[in-house]
């Protein structure tokens, strides 16, 4: 382990990357992106061993890739909330659920909402809100939910926010489960619409089986989001978040509108969560409340923290590992949760700053560690 990390440090990737000329960086980036798009077809040994469908009870590789990317979108969003703005959100699954449910509620002919609209406006049985319109609906719904949740609760400090958001996630799930007349309750909604596309082999372009198409779609969205989210970090907004995290009162006296920026963080996070949920629901073509249990929120937080909160690429790495590894080792079904727990503890103790922390966090962390170690007089 230490040898590997030493070797890794020896490469000084970060520095080299920073020092490389612009065109080289562009080229490498394009290469990475191209490789990412190629991944579903990756079939050359030994690299093919990363595939998840090698064992008998394995799972579909492209579907896993899709899920990885969806969770990466989640992680990028949650990283804004936790990593940048320092707000502990334990109910992120709520937004994810909202995204999935919005597209189902408005886009599926099986949804009571659509059926009500049909009878109210005399539309045909086939009618539902077109997918293209479901997207803005989903985004607006989750954004509004983010603001509605944030407005009264962001004034609360730290850990109070954690439990309130956790409650929010549960409220969304339970409401979805109990409001039979709106959401079909526990039965869930089938026939969630998919993006339009040409028919191939008698199946619509985006279907439940050809997951690589979903993967490409999600990947494209993810790349766009990363591009935008990176802009936040080193900007007035990023600094405001940082300042709030460090000392909210002092920041206010320095003219930082704490509440406004926190609300923005929440809104951005909510939107990305909703978007990820939308992709998930649409790919599944089925939503039901049990897919949105609190534990999923914990998983999301773990992704961001394991990766190294504050750094988008850390969050991506975290999302990848925590989604991919359990799928890759499916054959150990019964032992996976146990291993997962052990891994969480072990990784965090060995590398508390996260696997790929932002430079700032890494530096902060080094300082604190030295301090703590020296503070122990008997060390």
């Amino acid at each position, binding site marked *: 382990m230490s040898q590997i990390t030493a070797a890794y440090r020896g490469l000084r990737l970060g520095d080299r990357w920073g020092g490389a000329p612009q065109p080289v960086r562009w080229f490498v980036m394009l290469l990475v992106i191209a490789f990412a798009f190629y991944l579903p077809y990756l079939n050359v040994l030994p690299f093919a061993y990363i595939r998840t469908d090698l064992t008998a009870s394995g799972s579909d590789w492209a579907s896993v890739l899709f899920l990885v990317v969806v969770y990466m979108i989640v992680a990028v969003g949650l990283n804004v909330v*936790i990593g940048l703005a320092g707000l*502990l959100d334990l109910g992120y699954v709520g937004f994810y659920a909202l995204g999935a449910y919005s597209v189902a509620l408005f886009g599926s002919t099986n949804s009571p909402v659509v059926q009500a609209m049909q009878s109210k406006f005399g539309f045909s049985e086939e009618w539902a809100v077109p997918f293209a319109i479901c997207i803005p609906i989903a985004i607006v719904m989750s954004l509004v939910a983010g603001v509605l949740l944030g407005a*009264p*609760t962001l*004034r*609360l*400090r730290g*850990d*109070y926010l*954690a*439990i*309130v958001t*956790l*409650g*929010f996630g*549960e*409220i969304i799930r*339970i*409401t979805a*489960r*109990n409001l039979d007349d709106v959401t079909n309750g526990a039965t869930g909604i089938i026939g969630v619409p998919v993006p339009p596309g040409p028919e191939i082999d008698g199946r619509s372009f985006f279907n439940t089986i050809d997951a690589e198409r979903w993967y490409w779609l999600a990947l494209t969205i993810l790349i766009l989001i990363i591009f935008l989210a990176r802009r936040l970090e080193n900007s007035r907004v990023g600094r405001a978040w940082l300042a709030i995290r460090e000392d909210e009162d002092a920041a206010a006296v320095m003219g930082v509108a704490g509440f406004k920026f926190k609300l923005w963080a929440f809104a951005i996070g909510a939107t990305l969560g909703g978007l990820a949920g939308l992709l998930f629901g649409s790919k599944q073509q089925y939503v039901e409340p049990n897919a949105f249990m*609190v534990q999923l929120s*914990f998983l999301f*937080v*773990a992704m961001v*923290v*394991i990766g190294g*909160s504050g750094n988008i690429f850390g969050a991506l790495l975290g999302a990848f590992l925590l989604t991919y590894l359990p799928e890759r080792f499916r054959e150990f079904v*019964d*032992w996976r*949760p*146990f291993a*997962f*727990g*052990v*891994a*969480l*503890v072990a990784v*965090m*103790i060995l590398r*508390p*700053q996260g696997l790929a922390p932002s430079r700032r966090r890494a530096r902060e*962390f080094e300082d*604190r*560690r030295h*301090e*703590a*170690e020296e*503070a*122990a007089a008997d060390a």
Partner: protein
Amino acid sequence: MDFDALISGLDRHTLDGITRGSIYALVALGYTMVYGVMKLINFAHSEVFMVGTWAVLGTYTVIGATAGMGAGMVIAATVLALLVAMLASAGTALAVERIAYRPLRKKGAPPLIFLITGIGCSMVLVETFGQLLRFFFGQPFGRVTVNIPSVLETKTLFTIPGVDLAVSNTRVLIIVGAIVMMLALDTFVNKSRLGRGVRAVAQDPDTASLMGVNQERVIMLVFVLGGAMAGVAALLYTVQYDITKFDIGFIIGLKAFTAAVLGGIGNLRGALVGGLFLGIVEVYASAIWDSSWTNVYAFVVLVVVLMFRPTGLLGESLGKARA
């Protein structure tokens, strides 16, 4: 919606609520104490409780306690189970502290990391009973609900005159047990010297050490006390419900944590008030509507309370709790 049902059965519902709330309150203590001192949500605390319930089962199994023993035996078995549960829970809490938190503290890690190791520990403990032990020992471990012999058989102890409400011995045990433990703990923290040390570390660990407080000792103490209270809760829980399960801690932990925040996290009396309040609210609301909305009531009440009292019903912090 059935408000009549609530009104007509108010006495009964209140009793139910207090019973439920007493257990929340005892578990909430663990959250509140650890939070007060370390500003840390100990996510594994729900499993500390869970381990306690298994300890009760283990004790009964080993001594072969069953329903229908003589009164003396029942008392002996229960007391023994109580001690074992307290020991097991306190030990688990201490182990969690040693394994998941202390190394991080030594490295000065930020709070978020503690949260993740806490979640990790919680999973490990859950899986220990749901998988690991089953793998080695088979039943009763595993993912199914297991029965715990109801050594203390439910009997009506007395009837409250006037409202004609029958009160069973188990309920009396739960309510009285919870309140006695809380009072003892409260007195300890507020009156004893060590208790003052706990509060000092809570506010400023460095200065506390300059006053002669041994920080590590205090932290251990907090985990042990919180764990022991969860052990008490575990025994009372099994007395009332006679079951346990590998993941039984999750929901109770969640509620207890909510109760702690509701009362004002870091505040011992807050835990009691928050627990009872939450228990009663849940039962009342379930009486009016139904139990499928329970968590929604709980969290809505939490949000409403926090909106008017941003630091909970009784306000924050072990230190600020004015004795």
